[in-house]
Protein backbone atom coordinates (compact mmCIF):
# COMPACT_ATOMS: atom_id res chain seq x y z
CA UNK A 1 0.00 0.00 0.00
CA UNK A 2 2.79 2.44 0.76
CA UNK A 3 4.29 5.02 -1.54
CA UNK A 4 1.24 6.54 -3.23
CA UNK A 5 2.50 10.02 -2.35
CA UNK A 6 6.23 9.52 -2.81
CA UNK A 7 7.88 12.79 -3.81
CA UNK A 8 4.85 14.89 -2.95
CA UNK A 9 4.85 17.75 -0.46
CA UNK A 10 1.78 18.24 1.71
CA UNK A 11 0.54 20.83 4.19
CA UNK A 12 -2.27 19.87 6.55
CA UNK A 13 -3.97 22.64 8.52
CA UNK A 14 -5.35 21.55 11.85
CA UNK A 15 -2.56 19.01 11.51
CA UNK A 16 -2.34 18.33 15.23
CA UNK A 17 -6.09 17.78 15.64
CA UNK A 18 -7.95 14.47 15.67
CA UNK A 19 -8.44 14.07 11.94
CA UNK A 20 -5.51 16.23 10.82
CA UNK A 21 -3.09 14.12 12.83
CA UNK A 22 -4.35 10.91 11.21
CA UNK A 23 -3.95 12.48 7.77
CA UNK A 24 -0.37 13.55 8.52
CA UNK A 25 0.54 10.07 9.70
CA UNK A 26 -0.99 8.49 6.62
CA UNK A 27 0.75 10.92 4.27
CA UNK A 28 4.09 10.14 5.93
CA UNK A 29 3.44 6.40 5.54
CA UNK A 30 2.75 7.01 1.84
CA UNK A 31 6.11 8.69 1.36
CA UNK A 32 5.15 12.37 1.35
CA UNK A 33 6.99 15.26 2.96
CA UNK A 34 4.45 16.55 5.44
CA UNK A 35 3.98 19.85 7.24
CA UNK A 36 1.38 20.03 10.00
CA UNK A 37 0.03 23.53 10.59
CA UNK A 38 -1.77 24.18 13.85
CA UNK A 39 -2.17 26.68 16.67
CA UNK A 40 0.22 24.72 18.85
CA UNK A 41 2.39 21.64 18.58
CA UNK A 42 -0.06 19.76 20.82
CA UNK A 43 -3.13 20.88 18.87
CA UNK A 44 -5.95 23.10 20.00
CA UNK A 45 -7.76 20.19 21.67
CA UNK A 46 -4.65 19.08 23.58
CA UNK A 47 -3.89 15.84 21.75
CA UNK A 48 -0.68 14.05 22.59
CA UNK A 49 2.44 15.81 21.31
CA UNK A 50 4.17 12.82 19.69
CA UNK A 51 3.99 13.29 15.93
CA UNK A 52 6.58 13.16 13.24
CA UNK A 53 5.17 15.59 10.67
CA UNK A 54 7.09 18.87 10.80
CA UNK A 55 5.16 21.38 12.87
CA UNK A 56 4.42 24.81 11.43
CA UNK A 57 2.77 27.36 13.73
CA UNK A 58 -0.38 28.38 11.89
CA UNK A 59 -3.45 30.35 12.86
CA UNK A 60 -5.35 30.11 9.59
CA UNK A 61 -7.27 33.30 10.39
CA UNK A 62 -4.05 35.34 10.33
CA UNK A 63 -2.96 36.43 6.86
CA UNK A 64 0.50 37.12 8.22
CA UNK A 65 0.86 33.63 9.72
CA UNK A 66 -0.47 31.96 6.58
CA UNK A 67 2.08 33.81 4.45
CA UNK A 68 4.85 32.88 6.89
CA UNK A 69 3.81 29.21 6.85
CA UNK A 70 3.87 29.08 3.05
CA UNK A 71 7.31 30.74 3.18
CA UNK A 72 8.53 27.93 5.42
CA UNK A 73 7.16 25.26 3.09
CA UNK A 74 8.75 26.97 0.10
CA UNK A 75 12.12 27.30 1.82
CA UNK A 76 12.09 23.65 2.91
CA UNK A 77 10.50 21.96 -0.11
CA UNK A 78 10.18 24.47 -2.94
CA UNK A 79 6.66 23.43 -3.91
CA UNK A 80 3.35 22.17 -2.55
CA UNK A 81 1.48 19.22 -4.11
CA UNK A 82 -1.25 18.77 -1.54
CA UNK A 83 -3.07 21.23 0.71
CA UNK A 84 -5.51 19.78 3.22
CA UNK A 85 -7.70 22.40 4.87
CA UNK A 86 -8.66 20.44 7.99
CA UNK A 87 -8.64 23.26 10.55
CA UNK A 88 -12.14 23.85 11.83
CA UNK A 89 -14.20 24.70 14.88
CA UNK A 90 -17.75 24.04 16.00
CA UNK A 91 -20.05 26.41 17.88
CA UNK A 92 -22.71 24.28 19.58
CA UNK A 93 -25.52 26.82 19.67
CA UNK A 94 -28.62 28.01 17.87
CA UNK A 95 -28.31 31.40 16.19
CA UNK A 96 -30.18 33.02 19.05
CA UNK A 97 -27.53 31.96 21.54
CA UNK A 98 -24.61 32.54 19.20
CA UNK A 99 -22.82 35.81 19.81
CA UNK A 100 -21.56 37.84 16.88
CA UNK A 101 -18.01 37.12 18.02
CA UNK A 102 -18.70 33.37 17.99
CA UNK A 103 -20.31 33.57 14.56
CA UNK A 104 -17.37 35.55 13.18
CA UNK A 105 -14.87 33.19 14.80
CA UNK A 106 -16.59 30.16 13.23
CA UNK A 107 -16.48 31.71 9.75
CA UNK A 108 -12.97 33.05 10.29
CA UNK A 109 -11.56 29.58 10.98
CA UNK A 110 -13.78 27.41 8.74
CA UNK A 111 -14.14 29.66 5.70
CA UNK A 112 -11.76 32.63 5.79
CA UNK A 113 -8.95 30.32 6.89
CA UNK A 114 -9.55 28.13 3.87
CA UNK A 115 -9.57 31.20 1.64
CA UNK A 116 -6.27 32.45 3.06
CA UNK A 117 -4.37 29.15 3.02
CA UNK A 118 -5.57 28.34 -0.50
CA UNK A 119 -4.83 31.85 -1.77
CA UNK A 120 -1.24 31.77 -0.57
CA UNK A 121 -0.71 28.09 -1.42
CA UNK A 122 -1.61 28.54 -5.10
CA UNK A 123 1.79 29.90 -6.24
CA UNK A 124 3.50 26.92 -4.58
CA UNK A 125 0.96 24.48 -6.01
CA UNK A 126 1.52 25.79 -9.55
CA UNK A 127 5.15 24.72 -9.11
CA UNK A 128 3.98 21.18 -8.36
CA UNK A 129 1.37 20.93 -11.12
CA UNK A 130 2.17 20.38 -14.75
CA UNK A 131 3.90 17.76 -16.82
CA UNK A 132 1.03 15.38 -16.19
CA UNK A 133 1.08 15.93 -12.43
CA UNK A 134 -1.89 17.45 -10.68
CA UNK A 135 -1.85 19.28 -7.39
CA UNK A 136 -4.72 18.68 -5.00
CA UNK A 137 -6.55 20.86 -2.50
CA UNK A 138 -8.80 18.95 -0.10
CA UNK A 139 -11.20 21.02 1.95
CA UNK A 140 -13.14 19.88 4.98
CA UNK A 141 -16.81 20.33 4.36
CA UNK A 142 -19.33 18.33 6.33
CA UNK A 143 -22.43 16.26 6.21
CA UNK A 144 -23.81 19.28 8.10
CA UNK A 145 -23.38 21.39 4.97
CA UNK A 146 -26.26 19.37 3.47
CA UNK A 147 -28.36 18.38 6.46
CA UNK A 148 -28.61 20.32 9.69
CA UNK A 149 -27.80 18.92 13.10
CA UNK A 150 -29.64 20.72 15.87
CA UNK A 151 -27.81 23.47 17.71
CA UNK A 152 -24.99 23.89 15.23
CA UNK A 153 -26.25 26.79 13.14
CA UNK A 154 -23.03 28.71 12.51
CA UNK A 155 -21.14 25.49 11.85
CA UNK A 156 -23.73 24.25 9.34
CA UNK A 157 -23.69 27.58 7.51
CA UNK A 158 -19.90 27.70 7.40
CA UNK A 159 -19.73 24.21 5.90
CA UNK A 160 -22.24 25.18 3.22
CA UNK A 161 -19.87 28.01 2.35
CA UNK A 162 -16.98 25.55 2.17
CA UNK A 163 -18.88 23.43 -0.35
CA UNK A 164 -19.58 26.40 -2.63
CA UNK A 165 -15.99 27.65 -2.32
CA UNK A 166 -14.74 24.19 -3.25
CA UNK A 167 -16.68 24.21 -6.52
CA UNK A 168 -15.59 27.76 -7.30
CA UNK A 169 -11.91 27.03 -6.73
CA UNK A 170 -12.15 23.85 -8.82
CA UNK A 171 -13.53 25.85 -11.74
CA UNK A 172 -10.98 28.63 -11.45
CA UNK A 173 -7.82 26.62 -10.90
CA UNK A 174 -8.51 23.35 -12.68
CA UNK A 175 -6.98 24.63 -15.91
CA UNK A 176 -3.73 25.15 -13.98
CA UNK A 177 -3.65 21.50 -12.98
CA UNK A 178 -4.95 22.09 -9.46
CA UNK A 179 -7.81 19.84 -8.38
CA UNK A 180 -10.11 20.94 -5.57
CA UNK A 181 -12.45 18.64 -3.67
CA UNK A 182 -14.18 18.62 -0.32
CA UNK A 183 -14.56 15.73 2.08
CA UNK A 184 -17.80 15.82 4.01
CA UNK A 185 -17.45 13.59 7.05
CA UNK A 186 -20.38 12.55 9.16
CA UNK A 187 -19.75 11.52 12.74
CA UNK A 188 -16.07 10.81 13.28
CA UNK A 189 -14.49 9.87 16.59
CA UNK A 190 -12.45 12.96 17.45
CA UNK A 191 -11.98 15.09 20.55
CA UNK A 192 -14.66 17.35 18.96
CA UNK A 193 -17.18 14.48 18.84
CA UNK A 194 -16.38 13.34 22.38
CA UNK A 195 -16.90 16.89 23.54
CA UNK A 196 -20.27 16.85 21.75
CA UNK A 197 -21.25 13.61 23.52
CA UNK A 198 -20.27 15.08 26.88
CA UNK A 199 -21.92 18.43 26.28
CA UNK A 200 -24.90 19.77 24.42
CA UNK A 201 -25.53 16.58 22.50
CA UNK A 202 -26.70 14.69 25.57
CA UNK A 203 -29.12 17.40 26.60
CA UNK A 204 -32.26 16.23 24.79
CA UNK A 205 -32.83 12.64 25.86
CA UNK A 206 -31.21 12.84 29.28
CA UNK A 207 -29.22 9.68 28.58
CA UNK A 208 -25.68 8.86 29.55
CA UNK A 209 -22.70 9.44 27.28
CA UNK A 210 -22.60 5.68 26.62
CA UNK A 211 -26.26 5.42 25.65
CA UNK A 212 -25.88 8.47 23.41
CA UNK A 213 -22.82 6.93 21.81
CA UNK A 214 -24.67 3.67 21.12
CA UNK A 215 -27.65 5.56 19.71
CA UNK A 216 -25.36 7.41 17.34
CA UNK A 217 -23.72 4.16 16.24
CA UNK A 218 -27.01 2.42 15.62
CA UNK A 219 -28.50 5.10 13.43
CA UNK A 220 -25.74 4.51 10.87
CA UNK A 221 -26.32 1.85 8.17
CA UNK A 222 -22.73 0.79 8.85
CA UNK A 223 -23.58 0.63 12.62
CA UNK A 224 -20.67 2.75 13.69
CA UNK A 225 -19.35 6.24 13.45
CA UNK A 226 -16.09 6.79 11.61
CA UNK A 227 -12.52 7.01 12.74
CA UNK A 228 -9.92 9.57 11.74
CA UNK A 229 -8.22 6.75 9.81
CA UNK A 230 -11.37 6.30 7.69
CA UNK A 231 -11.18 9.95 6.73
CA UNK A 232 -7.44 9.74 6.11
CA UNK A 233 -8.07 6.84 3.71
CA UNK A 234 -10.21 9.06 1.49
CA UNK A 235 -7.96 12.10 1.82
CA UNK A 236 -5.06 9.91 0.76
CA UNK A 237 -6.94 8.73 -2.31
CA UNK A 238 -7.98 12.26 -3.31
CA UNK A 239 -4.41 13.49 -2.82
CA UNK A 240 -2.95 10.72 -4.94
CA UNK A 241 -2.61 10.45 -8.71
CA UNK A 242 -5.32 7.77 -8.56
CA UNK A 243 -7.83 10.62 -8.26
CA UNK A 244 -6.46 12.71 -11.12
CA UNK A 245 -9.93 13.07 -12.70
CA UNK A 246 -11.69 13.97 -9.45
CA UNK A 247 -12.37 17.66 -9.03
CA UNK A 248 -15.07 20.06 -7.88
CA UNK A 249 -16.92 17.43 -5.88
CA UNK A 250 -18.14 16.89 -2.37
CA UNK A 251 -17.22 13.45 -1.07
CA UNK A 252 -19.60 12.44 1.69
CA UNK A 253 -18.09 9.87 4.05
CA UNK A 254 -20.64 9.17 6.71
CA UNK A 255 -21.25 5.44 7.04
CA UNK A 256 -24.50 5.83 5.11
CA UNK A 257 -26.03 8.27 7.58
CA UNK A 258 -27.30 10.78 5.03
CA UNK A 259 -28.48 8.13 2.56
CA UNK A 260 -31.52 7.53 4.73
CA UNK A 261 -34.49 9.62 5.67
CA UNK A 262 -34.03 9.50 9.38
CA UNK A 263 -33.45 12.09 12.05
CA UNK A 264 -31.02 11.75 14.90
CA UNK A 265 -32.92 11.85 18.17
CA UNK A 266 -30.32 13.10 20.59
Amino acid at each position, binding site marked *: *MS*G*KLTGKVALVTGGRGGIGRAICERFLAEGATVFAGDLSDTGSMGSSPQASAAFVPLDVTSEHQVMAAMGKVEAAAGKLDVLVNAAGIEIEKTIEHTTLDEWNRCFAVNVTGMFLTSKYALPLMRKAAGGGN*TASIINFGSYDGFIADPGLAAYCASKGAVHAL*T*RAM*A*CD*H*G*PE*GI*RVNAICPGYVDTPMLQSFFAGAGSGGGGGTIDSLRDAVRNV*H*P*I*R*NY*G*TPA*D*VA*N*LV*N*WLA*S*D*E*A*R*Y*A*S*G*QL*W*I*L*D*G*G*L*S*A*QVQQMRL
Partner: protein
Amino acid sequence: MVSQGQNLLGRTAIVTGGGRGIGRAIVDRLVADGAHVLVCGRGNRPDDLAAEIAWVQADVGKSSDAEAIVRAARDAFGAPTILVNNAGIQITKTVVETTDEDWDLVVGANCKGMFNMCRAVLPFMAEHGGSIVNIGSISGNVADSKMAVYNASKAFVHALTRSMAVDHGPKVRCNAICPGWIMTEMAADGFDLASDPARAKADAIARHPVGRLGVPADIANAVAWLVSDQATFATGQCFVLDGGLTAASPLQPGLF
Protein backbone atom coordinates in the same frame (compact mmCIF):
# COMPACT_ATOMS: atom_id res chain seq x y z
CA MET B 1 0.05 4.03 -14.26
CA VAL B 2 0.17 4.16 -10.53
CA SER B 3 1.61 1.08 -8.88
CA GLN B 4 -1.00 -1.21 -7.43
CA GLY B 5 -1.00 -3.42 -4.40
CA GLN B 6 -2.70 -6.75 -4.02
CA ASN B 7 -5.25 -5.48 -1.55
CA LEU B 8 -8.09 -7.51 -3.10
CA LEU B 9 -6.12 -10.74 -3.01
CA GLY B 10 -8.34 -13.79 -3.26
CA ARG B 11 -11.63 -11.84 -3.35
CA THR B 12 -14.33 -12.90 -5.81
CA ALA B 13 -15.64 -10.06 -7.96
CA ILE B 14 -18.37 -9.81 -10.58
CA VAL B 15 -18.32 -7.04 -13.17
CA THR B 16 -21.32 -6.74 -15.47
CA GLY B 17 -20.80 -5.33 -18.95
CA GLY B 18 -17.09 -5.82 -18.45
CA GLY B 19 -16.13 -6.69 -22.01
CA ARG B 20 -15.09 -3.21 -23.12
CA GLY B 21 -14.95 0.45 -22.19
CA ILE B 22 -15.29 1.43 -18.55
CA GLY B 23 -16.23 -2.10 -17.47
CA ARG B 24 -13.11 -3.53 -19.04
CA ALA B 25 -10.90 -1.01 -17.23
CA ILE B 26 -12.58 -1.99 -13.95
CA VAL B 27 -11.97 -5.68 -14.69
CA ASP B 28 -8.30 -5.10 -15.47
CA ARG B 29 -7.84 -3.07 -12.30
CA LEU B 30 -9.56 -5.57 -9.99
CA VAL B 31 -7.42 -8.35 -11.48
CA ALA B 32 -4.30 -6.23 -10.96
CA ASP B 33 -5.34 -5.76 -7.33
CA GLY B 34 -5.53 -9.52 -6.83
CA ALA B 35 -9.23 -10.32 -7.21
CA HIS B 36 -10.70 -13.29 -9.04
CA VAL B 37 -13.03 -11.70 -11.57
CA LEU B 38 -16.03 -13.01 -13.43
CA VAL B 39 -17.27 -10.85 -16.26
CA CYS B 40 -20.55 -11.01 -18.08
CA GLY B 41 -21.82 -9.46 -21.25
CA ARG B 42 -24.46 -10.04 -23.88
CA GLY B 43 -21.95 -10.95 -26.59
CA ASN B 44 -19.22 -13.53 -26.99
CA ARG B 45 -16.15 -13.62 -24.78
CA PRO B 46 -13.74 -10.89 -25.95
CA ASP B 47 -10.67 -12.42 -27.60
CA ASP B 48 -8.27 -10.32 -25.58
CA LEU B 49 -9.67 -11.23 -22.15
CA ALA B 50 -6.94 -12.81 -20.00
CA ALA B 51 -7.32 -16.54 -19.40
CA GLU B 52 -7.76 -16.25 -15.61
CA ILE B 53 -10.86 -14.09 -16.05
CA ALA B 54 -14.13 -16.01 -16.22
CA TRP B 55 -16.74 -15.00 -18.81
CA VAL B 56 -20.46 -15.65 -18.82
CA GLN B 57 -22.59 -14.68 -21.78
CA ALA B 58 -25.77 -13.40 -20.20
CA ASP B 59 -28.41 -10.71 -20.13
CA VAL B 60 -28.64 -9.20 -16.64
CA GLY B 61 -32.12 -7.97 -17.50
CA LYS B 62 -33.30 -11.58 -17.07
CA SER B 63 -33.44 -12.69 -13.45
CA SER B 64 -32.51 -16.28 -14.31
CA ASP B 65 -29.39 -15.04 -16.08
CA ALA B 66 -28.43 -12.89 -13.09
CA GLU B 67 -28.75 -15.88 -10.77
CA ALA B 68 -26.67 -17.97 -13.14
CA ILE B 69 -23.93 -15.32 -13.19
CA VAL B 70 -23.71 -15.26 -9.40
CA ARG B 71 -23.68 -19.07 -9.20
CA ALA B 72 -20.97 -19.25 -11.83
CA ALA B 73 -18.80 -16.83 -9.85
CA ARG B 74 -19.29 -18.82 -6.65
CA ASP B 75 -18.50 -22.12 -8.39
CA ALA B 76 -15.40 -20.72 -10.08
CA PHE B 77 -13.90 -18.64 -7.28
CA GLY B 78 -15.98 -18.85 -4.09
CA ALA B 79 -18.66 -16.56 -2.68
CA PRO B 80 -18.68 -13.17 -4.40
CA THR B 81 -17.94 -10.22 -2.10
CA ILE B 82 -17.58 -7.58 -4.81
CA LEU B 83 -20.21 -6.68 -7.39
CA VAL B 84 -19.76 -3.88 -9.91
CA ASN B 85 -22.95 -3.14 -11.83
CA ASN B 86 -21.54 -1.49 -14.92
CA ALA B 87 -23.75 -2.89 -17.68
CA GLY B 88 -25.84 -0.15 -19.20
CA ILE B 89 -27.55 0.99 -22.35
CA GLN B 90 -27.87 4.53 -23.62
CA ILE B 91 -30.52 5.66 -26.10
CA THR B 92 -30.62 9.21 -27.46
CA LYS B 93 -34.31 10.05 -27.55
CA THR B 94 -36.88 12.34 -25.98
CA VAL B 95 -39.89 10.88 -24.17
CA VAL B 96 -42.05 11.38 -27.27
CA GLU B 97 -39.58 9.52 -29.48
CA THR B 98 -39.12 6.60 -27.06
CA THR B 99 -40.88 3.39 -28.11
CA ASP B 100 -42.07 0.62 -25.82
CA GLU B 101 -39.13 -1.45 -27.05
CA ASP B 102 -36.68 1.39 -26.19
CA TRP B 103 -38.15 1.57 -22.71
CA ASP B 104 -37.82 -2.16 -22.15
CA LEU B 105 -34.24 -2.13 -23.41
CA VAL B 106 -32.98 0.80 -21.31
CA VAL B 107 -34.98 0.11 -18.15
CA GLY B 108 -34.39 -3.62 -18.54
CA ALA B 109 -30.61 -3.27 -18.54
CA ASN B 110 -30.00 -0.19 -16.41
CA CYS B 111 -32.67 -0.69 -13.74
CA LYS B 112 -33.90 -4.25 -13.73
CA GLY B 113 -30.48 -5.66 -14.62
CA MET B 114 -28.83 -3.91 -11.71
CA PHE B 115 -31.71 -4.93 -9.42
CA ASN B 116 -31.51 -8.55 -10.57
CA MET B 117 -27.78 -8.73 -9.91
CA CYS B 118 -28.08 -7.20 -6.44
CA ARG B 119 -30.96 -9.47 -5.48
CA ALA B 120 -28.98 -12.51 -6.58
CA VAL B 121 -25.74 -11.55 -4.83
CA LEU B 122 -27.06 -10.10 -1.55
CA PRO B 123 -27.67 -13.48 0.16
CA PHE B 124 -23.98 -14.32 -0.34
CA MET B 125 -22.91 -10.91 0.89
CA ALA B 126 -25.22 -11.12 3.92
CA GLU B 127 -23.18 -14.15 4.94
CA HIS B 128 -19.67 -13.16 3.87
CA GLY B 129 -19.87 -9.35 3.73
CA GLY B 130 -19.44 -7.42 0.56
CA SER B 131 -19.27 -4.22 -1.39
CA ILE B 132 -21.48 -3.25 -4.31
CA VAL B 133 -20.53 -0.43 -6.65
CA ASN B 134 -23.11 0.72 -9.16
CA ILE B 135 -22.20 2.85 -12.14
CA GLY B 136 -24.66 5.72 -12.01
CA SER B 137 -24.13 8.90 -13.97
CA ILE B 138 -24.10 12.67 -13.71
CA SER B 139 -27.12 12.26 -16.01
CA GLY B 140 -29.00 10.92 -13.02
CA ASN B 141 -28.48 14.29 -11.31
CA VAL B 142 -28.70 16.73 -14.22
CA ALA B 143 -30.36 16.09 -17.56
CA ASP B 144 -28.53 15.39 -20.78
CA SER B 145 -30.76 16.53 -23.62
CA LYS B 146 -32.62 13.89 -25.63
CA MET B 147 -31.64 11.14 -23.21
CA ALA B 148 -34.82 11.14 -21.17
CA VAL B 149 -35.20 7.51 -20.19
CA TYR B 150 -31.46 7.01 -19.76
CA ASN B 151 -31.31 9.99 -17.38
CA ALA B 152 -34.23 8.62 -15.39
CA SER B 153 -32.75 5.14 -15.29
CA LYS B 154 -29.58 6.51 -13.70
CA ALA B 155 -31.60 8.33 -11.04
CA PHE B 156 -33.12 4.92 -10.29
CA VAL B 157 -29.60 3.53 -9.86
CA HIS B 158 -28.74 6.29 -7.39
CA ALA B 159 -31.87 5.76 -5.31
CA LEU B 160 -31.54 1.97 -5.20
CA THR B 161 -27.91 2.44 -4.15
CA ARG B 162 -29.00 4.39 -1.09
CA SER B 163 -31.79 1.93 -0.29
CA MET B 164 -29.52 -1.09 -0.34
CA ALA B 165 -26.92 0.66 1.82
CA VAL B 166 -29.59 1.39 4.40
CA ASP B 167 -31.25 -2.04 4.26
CA HIS B 168 -28.20 -4.27 4.03
CA GLY B 169 -25.57 -2.47 6.11
CA PRO B 170 -23.43 -3.07 8.03
CA LYS B 171 -22.54 -6.36 6.30
CA VAL B 172 -22.90 -4.89 2.85
CA ARG B 173 -21.70 -1.51 1.68
CA CYS B 174 -23.27 -0.05 -1.43
CA ASN B 175 -22.14 3.03 -3.33
CA ALA B 176 -22.46 4.47 -6.81
CA ILE B 177 -19.93 6.23 -8.97
CA CYS B 178 -21.41 8.86 -11.27
CA PRO B 179 -19.09 9.37 -14.22
CA GLY B 180 -19.23 12.38 -16.46
CA TRP B 181 -17.85 12.30 -19.98
CA ILE B 182 -15.55 9.33 -20.25
CA MET B 183 -13.80 8.68 -23.54
CA THR B 184 -15.03 5.31 -24.71
CA GLU B 185 -15.99 4.15 -28.17
CA MET B 186 -19.54 5.26 -27.31
CA ALA B 187 -18.37 8.82 -26.59
CA ALA B 188 -16.07 8.96 -29.62
CA ASP B 189 -19.02 8.05 -31.82
CA GLY B 190 -20.90 10.99 -30.35
CA PHE B 191 -18.20 13.47 -31.36
CA ASP B 192 -18.05 11.99 -34.84
CA LEU B 193 -21.72 12.84 -35.31
CA ALA B 194 -21.16 16.54 -34.52
CA SER B 195 -21.17 19.02 -37.41
CA ASP B 196 -17.63 20.05 -36.43
CA PRO B 197 -16.14 17.15 -34.41
CA ALA B 198 -12.88 18.94 -33.55
CA ARG B 199 -14.72 22.01 -32.27
CA ALA B 200 -17.19 19.88 -30.35
CA LYS B 201 -14.37 18.09 -28.57
CA ALA B 202 -12.48 21.30 -27.79
CA ASP B 203 -15.68 22.78 -26.37
CA ALA B 204 -16.31 19.72 -24.23
CA ILE B 205 -12.78 19.79 -22.84
CA ALA B 206 -13.05 23.51 -22.06
CA ARG B 207 -16.05 22.79 -19.84
CA HIS B 208 -13.98 20.48 -17.63
CA PRO B 209 -11.98 22.20 -14.88
CA VAL B 210 -9.38 19.43 -15.05
CA GLY B 211 -8.81 20.25 -18.73
CA ARG B 212 -9.56 16.86 -20.19
CA LEU B 213 -12.24 14.25 -20.59
CA GLY B 214 -12.17 11.19 -18.42
CA VAL B 215 -10.66 7.85 -19.31
CA PRO B 216 -11.98 4.45 -18.19
CA ALA B 217 -9.03 4.04 -15.79
CA ASP B 218 -10.25 7.10 -13.84
CA ILE B 219 -13.44 5.24 -12.99
CA ALA B 220 -11.58 1.99 -12.28
CA ASN B 221 -9.39 3.87 -9.79
CA ALA B 222 -12.45 4.93 -7.81
CA VAL B 223 -14.06 1.47 -7.98
CA ALA B 224 -10.83 -0.10 -6.68
CA TRP B 225 -10.85 2.27 -3.73
CA LEU B 226 -14.52 1.79 -2.90
CA VAL B 227 -14.35 -2.02 -2.84
CA SER B 228 -11.15 -2.06 -0.80
CA ASP B 229 -10.76 -2.03 2.97
CA GLN B 230 -9.76 1.62 2.63
CA ALA B 231 -13.43 2.52 2.24
CA THR B 232 -15.10 0.65 5.10
CA PHE B 233 -16.88 3.84 6.27
CA ALA B 234 -18.13 4.74 2.79
CA THR B 235 -21.66 3.63 2.06
CA GLY B 236 -24.92 4.95 0.65
CA GLN B 237 -23.27 7.58 -1.49
CA CYS B 238 -23.27 8.49 -5.15
CA PHE B 239 -19.80 9.87 -5.85
CA VAL B 240 -19.53 12.15 -8.88
CA LEU B 241 -16.34 11.70 -10.90
CA ASP B 242 -16.55 14.12 -13.79
CA GLY B 243 -13.43 16.29 -13.89
CA GLY B 244 -15.41 19.13 -12.34
CA LEU B 245 -18.00 19.35 -15.15
CA THR B 246 -21.06 19.56 -12.93
CA ALA B 247 -19.38 21.76 -10.31
CA ALA B 248 -19.50 24.54 -12.90
CA SER B 249 -22.60 26.27 -14.14
CA PRO B 250 -23.74 24.97 -17.53
CA LEU B 251 -23.83 28.58 -18.69
CA GLN B 252 -20.25 29.47 -19.59
CA PRO B 253 -20.10 32.87 -21.29
CA GLY B 254 -16.44 32.30 -22.17
CA LEU B 255 -17.50 29.55 -24.56
CA PHE B 256 -20.19 31.52 -26.40
